[in-house]
Each structure stands twice: as C-alpha cells, then as structure tokens.
C-alpha cells in the first residue's frame, strides 16, 4: 500500500495520476506527476495570454476591437463579480481573486484539451484551500482586536465560559477541507465519468460524449470555479466587515 497504489492504473479505464520522474530528497521518494506537467501547461497558457494582452493594450484604442474586446470583457466580468461580493473591500482582493478564477477555470476545462485536470489532484485543491484559510485568519488578525476574536470563538456562550471553543475551532479548520474537497470531488467525478465513457463504451463513443463534455467540463467546471471564488470572498469579507 502507500503512495504507489495511487500512481498505478487499472486496465483500460485510466483516470489516475501517473508518475513521470522520481527523485530522492532527504531520503524521501518524490514524484513529478502528470498533474505537475498539466499545471505547468495551464500556467504557460495563462502567462502567454497575459503577455499578449499586455502587448495589445499598449496600442489600445478608444473603440475596442477584436482582441481588446475580449480582454476588457474578462476584466469587467471579474471586477463585477468581486465588487458584487465584497462591495467597498473589492480593490484589496480583486487581483488575487481574478488570478485564481482564471487558473481554476483553465484547470477545470483543460479536460477538454486532453489533459488530466490539475484540480482533480487533491494536492492542488488543498493548496488553494490553505491559501484561503491563511488569508481568512491573517485578515481576521489585521482587522479585529484579539479580545473580539476570543469572544467570537466562544460565540454562543459568554467569553468566560469557553466550552464552545473547541467546536468553533473544528468548524474553522473544516473550512479549507470542505472548500478543497468540494472542488476536488466535482472535477474528479467529471474526470472519472469521462474515463468510464471512453473506457467502457469505446465502441459506441463517437460524437455524443461531446454533450457530456459540455456538462462535466464546461458547466460543472465554471460553477465550481465561481463557487470557490465566491466562498473565498465571502469568508474574507466577513472578517473585514466586523468592527
């Protein structure tokens, strides 16, 4: 058992993560997997896109045309989403939220282009969830006094009776776990369904799987991206709003 079994694949149905190169670090065997490669591809596409946008925007015109239209549409949409969820606090988080929005969206729909979605690896989504977790608590300590935080953590009971404290602590720790598992399980279920369709029904899987791709990759991926960003913004905004 252990790490090996996760890296192995079973017969013709193939949706597992494959190890490509292994190396030893501090006596520990570490694998470079297909997830790393897919993340790298997604990142390169996004970086290339942003360089093209930057180059085009130097010669921006008053009346947008073609490519400039697309770029402005994306930026305006993301601005609107963040402003709708955070109100006046939007400028503090709009850059981060836009970045992870584009990254998660590209990761989720990369299944369309034959990659294994990087977000179908728990390592990726746990990292995203932990970033949100630390963001929530750093914001909490910056915007609230320690006494207020203690009162909040003992919340249904008075602060001199911290019986409820452990339960509140667990519910705080559950935030990154449920955030990351939600994204991971949704993308993984789509990946597994598509692998089952192509693996078991390979004889008759001609054109109709395209409809499944639209649902599992595009629709589900976009919804989960939106939900992840929305929840991150809601949690962080909650900590900023409490005075």
């Amino acid at each position, binding site marked *: 058992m252990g790490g090996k*079994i996760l890296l192995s694949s079973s017969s013709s149905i193939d949706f*597992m993560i494959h190890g490509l190169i292994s190396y030893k670090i501090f006596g520990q065997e570490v694998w470079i997997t297909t997830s790393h490669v897919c993340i790298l591809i997604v990142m390169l596409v996004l970086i290339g896109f942003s360089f093209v946008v930057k180059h085009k925007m130097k010669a921006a015109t008053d009346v947008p045309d073609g490519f400039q239209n697309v770029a402005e549409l994306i930026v305006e949409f993301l601005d609107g989403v963040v402003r709708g969820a955070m109100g006046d606090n939007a400028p503090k988080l709009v850059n981060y939220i836009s970045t992870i929005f584009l990254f998660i969206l590209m990761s989720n729909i990369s299944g369309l282009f034959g990659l294994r979605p990087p977000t179908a690896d728990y390592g990726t989504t746990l990292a995203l969830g932990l970033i949100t977790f630390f963001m929530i608590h750093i914001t909490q300590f910056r915007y609230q006094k320690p006494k207020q935080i203690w009162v909040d953590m003992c919340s249904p009971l008075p602060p001199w009776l911290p019986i409820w404290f452990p339960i509140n602590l667990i519910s705080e720790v559950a935030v990154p776990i*449920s955030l990351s*598992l*939600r994204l991971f*399980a*949704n993308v993984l279920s789509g990946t597994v369904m598509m692998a089952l369709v192509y693996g078991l029904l390979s004889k008759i899987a001609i054109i109709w799987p395209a409809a499944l791709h639209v649902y599992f990759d595009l629709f589900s991926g976009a919804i989960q991206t*939106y*939900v992840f960003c929305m929840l991150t913004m809601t949690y962080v905004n909650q900590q900023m709003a409490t005075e």
Partner: protein
Amino acid sequence: MNITGQDLILACSAIGAGLAVIAGIGPGIGQGIAAGYAASAVGRNPGAKGDIMSTMLLGQAVAETTGLYGLLVAMLLLFVKPLAG
C-alpha cells in the same frame, strides 16, 4: 470455489461503495428544494433573476458537498482499496 479473506474484503468494499453513494439522496432533495424556491422567487420578482440564479447556484454547490463526500468514500473503496492489504 474457494472464497479467500481478500475476496471477501473486495466484495464488501464494493457493497460499501454502493451504500456510500446513497448519500446522494440528501443533496438531491436539498437542491430540488432550492431550485423550487428560486423558481417561485423569479415568479414573484422577475427583475432579480440574475441575483437569484447566482445565490441559488452558490447554495446548491454548498449543499452538494455532503453528497460528494459519499462519492469520495465510494471512489476510495473502489479504486484505492484501503482495506485490502
């Protein structure tokens, strides 16, 4: 035909996986209720359709989490086989 302990564990894992995805009932009912109330809200106030849609999708995605936990348990039992030695 001999049934070894290993076979028994695999068979029980498959049954357990099937039982685990029954967790999908809860989110199904919950999402249906959310969609129903969203539909009645749109009926009462068609102007707020965009806000209602985004709130509904957010709530449904959060409600979906428990069902996904069941799905994860089923997948672990079927593909990772943590109980088979």
